[in-house]
């Protein structure tokens, strides 16, 4: 069975089709994972679509740099996450600038402000609170939560896409969940963030 991280799609299609056709098959295989991971990282549909497509385009341009063609997804994931995090940082800088202009005081924009609550299916108050709390996690913690809860990756797969060992995955998940719980508890207690 093809797992997300070890697939032979590339080898199989690569031998029979043109590079563009082969890449189209790869894109179609991974587009949902790419879109939903980007959505979890940046929080809104337009940016997630734009960034995931841009990541595929960059992967196509630099495809010759991928040494093990069967390990497409971990390599692609690095491109995608770097794009998403750099997008969030740029957005934060832009918003800080615009807030400075508006009232003359330095602003402290939250990534959470850009997370669209409409992205949660079958919404209710509890789910909205979790989504908001996820958006308040830092990058490393948010990504493990997204990979585990929204894409259901195993620890082995997470270790591959994050280029770390299983122990690091476990530890990162522990602290991510601990932090998530703290944020939810604090919100429940009505204390300001």
């Amino acid at each position, binding site marked *: 069975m093809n797992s997300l991280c070890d697939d032979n799609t590339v080898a199989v299609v690569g031998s029979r089709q043109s590079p563009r056709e082969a890449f189209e098959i790869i894109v179609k295989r991974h587009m949902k994972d790419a879109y939903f991971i980007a959505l979890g990282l940046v929080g809104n549909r337009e940016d997630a679509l734009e960034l995931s497509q841009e990541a595929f385009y960059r992967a196509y341009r630099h495809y010759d740099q991928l040494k093990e063609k069967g390990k497409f997804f971990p390599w692609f994931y690095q491109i995608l996450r770097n794009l998403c995090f750099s997008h969030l940082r740029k957005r934060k800088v832009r918003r800080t600038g615009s807030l400075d202009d508006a009232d003359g005081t330095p602003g402290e924009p939250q990534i959470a402000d850009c997370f669209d609550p409409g992205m949660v299916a079958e919404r209710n108050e*509890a789910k909205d609170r979790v989504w908001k709390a996820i958006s308040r996690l830092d990058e490393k913690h948010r990504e493990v939560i997204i990979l585990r809860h929204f894409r259901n990756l195993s620890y082995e797969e997470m270790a591959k896409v994050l280029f770390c060992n299983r122990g690091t995955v476990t530890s990162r998940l522990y602290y991510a*969940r601990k932090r998530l719980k703290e944020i939810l508890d604090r919100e429940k207690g009505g204390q300001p963030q």
Partner: protein
Amino acid sequence: MTCQDHKDLMMAYLDGELDESQRKAFEEHLASCPACAQEMKEFTKLKQVTDSVTLVEPEDRLWEQYWGGVYNRIERNIGWTLFSVAGILLAIYAGFKAIEDLVRDPAVGLLLKIGLLVLIAGLAILFVSILRERIYFWSKDRYKDVRR
């Protein structure tokens, strides 16, 4: 094993990533450690809430048009590359023609012609120097082939 060691197993237990013997050992620890049992209870509750959150599945149209969006970027990049190369070549050609006309024009003063030629020579030296420096540093870069 200390409680800290068991904390590392806690996540794997929660996510069903432990093998049978590890699972049993961890459950024995939980039965004898109220602090870990309490923490485990809280994490289980958190996992249930987090698992209940699912993201909105976009309409089929988005998936149908997805490859088109990627392909457009690939195609436009080829277009821009050709356009840029052609633009640079045409600009260089036009520049040479303009200089040639200027140098051959008897109405233009000798000093201006010399000045122009010296300016071009200076630009050419600067260009070659920067290019050589870039190539040198790129070839000596120990990390250029490092890919994750």
